[in-house]
């Protein structure tokens, strides 16, 4: 339905930094070799990738949304949501695959699938290279293998699952590869990984409400802390780090807490030459969804001003159940902040970070 709000969105250049696909085992199986093809399709227990079994159905209250092909993205996101450039992310369960060889094969297969099925015929679509951090050397190889594809504009890491946490020096080879190829690193947590990283909490809570509230901030807290513990942003000064699907309001808390503890225990993180805040304001970015919802909208403006409008990039997380329609954020930004800052959040920062 054409109305005033859609016209307003239509005028904006919008880059969506977090769009998801559903890739079923039968589909990915076509893109991988044996024995992994059989592992994905002939197991007697079904999908070999672990899930925690939490109810995501919304109890039948809303219809399930699916993206099963590029035409869905074109129709639902580009036309209905007025997204100019969707960035396709995720084969999230790769991060939890118990067999590292399977994880590596799946990541390669997924990247080939996305390139051929989603990117080749849609030059305004972009994607991020999924890597399996269970095998850092293979992850680096995958970055070099795919890094010259023009529509692959970043490296996508599931940050629920990898152990030790992602600042560990064993992953330096991956960060060096991304820096070599000029690709930012994007971290994205998955609710299905909560059971892996936080098994005690997973067993203790009662509902998916609790799991979903906690998964993304827990994962981002752990990843960001680990990056600073081992000085990753100092080791790779040209690398950019993107934290997806955590909303924005967690960042000030972590930024200032990291500053505080770093000043007291600098000798524990001695690679750092600056305060964590300085690295964050130089090399770190966050996607907006799920944008927090204060009862007083003015509070969000204040928090965004603290974060800075050059750090935030719009994301929808479509088609997941807590997606943000660009209408909400665009309207909020239009009313509350200067136009140049609105444009940075809707597209300018993503253009710069991802080189779009």
């Amino acid at each position, binding site marked *: 339905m054409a109305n005033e709000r859609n016209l307003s969105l239509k005028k904006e250049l919008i880059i969506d930094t977090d769009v998801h696909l559903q890739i079923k085992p039968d589909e990915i199986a076509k893109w991988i070799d044996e024995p992994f093809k059989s592992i994905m399709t002939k197991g007697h227990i079904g999908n070999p990738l672990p899930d925690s079994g939490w109810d995501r159905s919304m109890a039948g209250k809303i219809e399930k949304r699916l993206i099963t092909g590029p035409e869905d993205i074109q129709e639902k996101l580009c036309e209905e949501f007025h997204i100019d450039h969707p960035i396709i992310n995720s084969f999230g369960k790769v991060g939890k695959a118990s067999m590292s060889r399977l994880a590596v094969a799946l990541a390669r297969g997924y990247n080939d699938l996305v390139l051929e099925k989603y990117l080749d015929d849609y030059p305004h679509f972009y994607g991020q290279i999924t890597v399996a951090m269970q095998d850092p050397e293979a992850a680096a190889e995958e970055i070099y293998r795919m890094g010259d594809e023009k529509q692959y504009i970043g490296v996508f890491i599931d940050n629920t699952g990898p152990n030790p946490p992602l600042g560990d*020096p064993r992953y330096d*080879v991956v960060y060096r590869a991304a820096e070599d190829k000029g690709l930012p690193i994007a971290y994205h947590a998955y609710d299905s990984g909560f059971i892996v990283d936080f098994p005690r909490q997973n067993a203790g809570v009662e509902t998916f409400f609790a799991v979903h509230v906690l998964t993304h901030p827990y994962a981002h807290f752990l990843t960001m802390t680990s990056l600073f513990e081992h000085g990753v942003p100092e080791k790779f000064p040209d690398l950019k780090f993107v934290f997806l699907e955590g909303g924005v309001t967690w960042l000030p808390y972590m930024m200032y807490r990291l500053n505080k503890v770093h000043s007291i225990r*600098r*000798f524990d993180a*001695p690679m750092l*030459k600056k*305060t964590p805040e300085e690295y964050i304001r130089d090399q770190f970015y966050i996607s907006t969804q799920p944008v927090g919802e204060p009862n007083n909208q003015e509070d969000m403006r204040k928090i965004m001003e603290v974060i800075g409008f050059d750090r935030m990039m719009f994301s929808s997380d479509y088609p997941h159940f807590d997606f943000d329609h660009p209408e909400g954020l665009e309207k909020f930004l239009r009313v509350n902040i200067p136009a140049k800052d609105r444009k940075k959040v809707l597209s300018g920062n993503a253009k710069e970070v991802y080189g779009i």
Partner: protein
Amino acid sequence: MSDHIVADVSEIGDGERILVELKGREVGVFYLDGEYYAFANWCAHQGGPWCEGTLTGTFEGEFNRDTLEYRLNWVKEGKILNCPWHGWEYDVKTGVCLSRRSVKLPSYPVRVEDNKIIVTL
């Protein structure tokens, strides 16, 4: 500004310090590697008495991007002053805070005349 004799050189050995009060301010006078240093006894963090902290070494990180070798080296033994309240680290020769390089503690000129240590404040 005026000169204040704070001690005889024999009173501060290498790696030692004294605390004096000059014009109502607490001042720490350090002797390290043949040089004297004088600082206000005030930490930039929360105002702690940093001149009363321990002198230790600290870790520095070293990274080789080509080999990915990552090492932590214990360095500057006896030259890092840790504020006794929260452990903020300062290089005692410069007063620069190691975690916040833009923070430098107020220092005062020190000189020796006729074996007397003189602080100008």
